């Protein structure tokens, strides 16, 4: 929270004058938990940020960093020896209809780095049209990439169209996690009208090898009541690990997912095929899903989650 406030202040003082009112509104919404009822702000947020990593003297360094509008990237100092972590920040404090965010990250040959998000991405009520988020990852030969954004929270009457395009070298490794909450559960919110389309397209050596398309619209509470959809779940996550030997990690991931320490309300499955490891999780409790995801990810990666996850 403190970190976010500092960033909002900085943005307000910066050249993007139109941002201030919007950022204040979003911050207020976050504090009171009434985000879905935040006043409609007509300015459209635009943000574009790009980061590229390269190998230099055996260590991964930032090769290029570009940011404009409401998208920022910060590079907090990490533990010595750990791969660098880049933190993507949406200074608008959320996404609403007509907003557009473009984030790109590229991992040069042999690099290892993590990209995460400063906070949950909140998708607020749209007065018309969808917010658009377009993420592009490019993972070079022998590189190890982690794309670990925090959860996306859709509030009632929000609209989001998101794309994730991933280009993998044949021997690249890439861990991707995305979780989506339809409301925050514990606060009794019900998303009776929402729209999400989330398209992932992963190419290996230029060939489309994995496509994931998640699509929910209308009364999502009713949609996810079905036993083949969610059986009452409102929180969903997909974990994807691409690697030439991904299949070899299946038993380990399956063991973590089915571990006795798992959250009782979380249902999950895992599969492996064609150099991919996939796990899906769902729960009626966003908090339980997040705890389980953190437990699984920390064990799978053998490292604690990036710091913003615990702020």
């Amino acid at each position, binding site marked *: 929270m403190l970190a976010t406030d500092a960033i909002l202040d900085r943005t307000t003082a910066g050249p993007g004058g139109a941002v201030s009112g919007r950022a204040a509104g979003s911050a207020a919404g976050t504090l009171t938990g009434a985000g879905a009822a935040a006043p409609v702000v007509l300015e459209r947020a635009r943000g574009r940020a790009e980061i590229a990593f390269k190998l230099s003297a055996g260590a991964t360094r930032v090769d290029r960093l570009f940011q404009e509008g409401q998208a920022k990237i910060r590079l907090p100092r990490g533990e010595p020896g750990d791969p660098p972590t880049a933190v993507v920040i949406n200074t608008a404090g959320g996404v609403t209809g007509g907003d557009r965010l473009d984030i790109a990250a590229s991992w040069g040959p042999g690099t290892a780095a993590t990209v995460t998000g400063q906070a949950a991405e909140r998708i607020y009520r749209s007065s018309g049209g969808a917010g658009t988020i377009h993420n592009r990852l490019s993972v070079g030969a022998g590189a190890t990439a982690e794309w670990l954004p925090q959860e996306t929270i859709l509030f009632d009457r929000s609209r989001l169209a998101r794309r994730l395009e991933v280009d993998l070298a044949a021997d690249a490794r890439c861990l991707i996690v995305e979780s989506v909450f339809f409301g925050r559960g514990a606060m009794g919110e019900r998303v009776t009208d929402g729209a999400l389309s989330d*398209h992932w397209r*992963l190419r290996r050596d230029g060939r489309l090898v994995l496509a994931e398309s998640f699509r929910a619209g209308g009364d999502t509470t009713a949609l996810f009541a079905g036993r083949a959809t969610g059986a009452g779940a409102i929180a969903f996550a997909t974990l994807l690990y691409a690697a030439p030997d991904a299949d070899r990690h299946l038993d380990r991931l399956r063991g973590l997912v089915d571990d006795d320490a798992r959250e009782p309300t979380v249902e999950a499955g895992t599969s492996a095929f064609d150099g991919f490891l996939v796990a899906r999780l769902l729960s009626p409790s966003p908090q339980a899903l997040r705890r389980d995801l953190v437990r699984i990810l920390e064990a799978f990666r053998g490292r604690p989650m990036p710091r913003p996850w615990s702020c």
Partner: protein
Amino acid sequence: MPANGTAIGMADGGIRAASSEDAPVGGAVDVAATAPDGTSRAASAGLLDLMVWLSPAFPVGGFTYSHGLEWAIEDGSVATAADLEAWLADVLRHGAGRNDAILFAAAWRAAAGSDVATLAEIVELAAALQPTRERRLEASQQGAAFVKAVTDAWPHDAMAALVATLQARFGTVPWTYAVAVATASAAHGIALSDALPATLQAFAANVISAGVRAIPLGQTDGLRILRRLGPVIAEVAVEGLAAGLDDLGGAAVRADIASMKHETQYTRLFRS
């Protein structure tokens, strides 16, 4: 076969493509010949082919796949005829049914227009969309077996040309079942508005058949479910005709998880 009988009924019932571009391109049959009662010989021949291709007896091994249903039965999510109907309605509306309908329509149009570049993209996308190991197996084994059986037993220039071009592009073409049926239907001049709902219904009939055996249910229960899902199949087919590839996507997350869990299910009758 119930699937085929109803498929013809549904075609009569008015699932019609929005534009004339969805009319068949005409295969080897005489398109102009029309009987006094209005039945064209070409349309009848196409429907007869389609009925054979979608029959459970067609050698694609459909009876060995449950699309994750076997786990849902094990898990207790599907225990009755009503449960099976609800499960399958969700899979049709929010899972593989709707995605297959969209891919089917797009593949049919590309194949009918001899747009092999677009068809190749759809072939690749449909394969990439299969979310688990067993769903990949289910879609790809049936797709490849379907293309082999149709090209072996129904030699046809338009289909042979499409298959040869795709083979030159991919080596081994990553066929999936819905895209394979769409491609053959277009090449053979079978109307999209017939082939799409009939294929969806064959998929539904196959999952019901798995349910009838694994729950178990009576044959009549299975037939009733198929009849009651008729409007859902029609609705999904219409949506598939109108939608584009950007409209792909689903929310049948528990059906995906069921397929994943099926991989380690202790006693299994089915391959998916």
